[in-house]
């Protein structure tokens, strides 16, 4: 399934957002500062765009203002342990006019996992960026309130990273000593 708005988005990408030396080049090349956005086509009914972190604010603003993707659905991350760059931050937007979704993907490295915050465009991004910061340790530049939202103060590490030990507990209340065998 595809939607007419996707063709518009892709055309705009080609014409305005991509300052490529070869604007008619249809092959999706690697991302570079001169070509910060590329379309990966429509997958499962969702238009997928890959971009550099620097282009995020411009792309999101254009999606919201020009193409009326007015609902911020989600931001989360994928931990590709062993790859470089390691983290993939994934955004979803929904258009209540066109009733379609668009997905943005961008890669950040483990050494500096920071992306721009979208709280200036979508107020609802604040909570979801806090959760993503909890679970993956992604920093959001411009979000002033990145306190733990699902975790608690004093939690060390980021539990949804693949290198967090699966059963490591960080109890807030000290455990009682084992009470011996169960007595009926």
């Amino acid at each position, binding site marked *: 399934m595809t939607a007419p708005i996707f063709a518009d988005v892709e055309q705009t990408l080609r014409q305005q957002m991509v300052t490529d030396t070869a604007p008619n080049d249809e092959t999706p090349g690697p991302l570079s500062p001169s070509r910060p956005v590329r379309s990966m086509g429509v997958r499962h009914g969702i238009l997928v765009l890959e971009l550099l972190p620097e282009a995020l604010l411009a792309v999101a603003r254009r999606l919201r203002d020009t193409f009326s993707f007015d609902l911020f659905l989600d931001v989360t991350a994928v931990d590709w342990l062993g790859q470089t760059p390691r983290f993939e931050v994934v955004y979803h937007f929904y258009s209540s006019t066109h009733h379609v979704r668009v997905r943005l993907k961008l890669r950040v490295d483990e050494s500096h996992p920071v992306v721009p915050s979208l709280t200036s465009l979508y107020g609802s991004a604040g909570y979801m960026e806090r959760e993503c910061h909890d679970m993956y340790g992604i920093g959001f530049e411009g979000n002033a309130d990145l306190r733990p939202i699902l975790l*608690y103060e004093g939690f060390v590490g980021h539990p949804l990273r693949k290198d967090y030990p699966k059963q*490591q507990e960080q*109890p*807030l*209340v000290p*455990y009682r000593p084992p*009470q011996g065998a169960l007595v009926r």
Partner: protein
Amino acid sequence: MYGKQLPIVDATRSAPTAAGPGGGTAGKPATFEYLTTRKDELVGWARKFSLFPYPFVTACCAMEFMAVSASSYDTDRFGAALPRFSPRQADLLMVVGTVTQKQAPILLKVYEQMCEPKWVMAFGVCASTGGFYQNYASLPGIDRIIPVDIYVPGCPPRPEMVIDGIMRLQEKIANGRHPIINDRF
């Protein structure tokens, strides 16, 4: 039916001619003139039928808790019906559902706010052992932080299991020691 029967001695029948306490009523059939029992049995018998549960309900087991409280299964028949939503008034803490590490201080505070005597039931496998949540988020059994008297496993437990758990807890109360603060009793 269950638990020990209270040994009630009928004064008039066992000694019909004795002028015991209330001797003027000698000859009346089966009146409770006096009874002999152990203090622990009497207090335990009273306590086991007046359990006021505090439902610490956190997860999907709550549905089963509602089922067992509602009219089909009706824990009221066992003297454990009236939920008190203040830990000060409750004596049975029913921990129904998963308790996360973040909630553990709250559970501990609720437990500490309850007056003696108090009992704790771990309702469902998450409260008993953590169940299949063995990760950073959830407490592997509430007995890591508070003492537990009765464990009801199951995901969720059937209402029959909960009732069986309540009855076993009542047996435990009936057979337990009940120290009273006043040394004259």
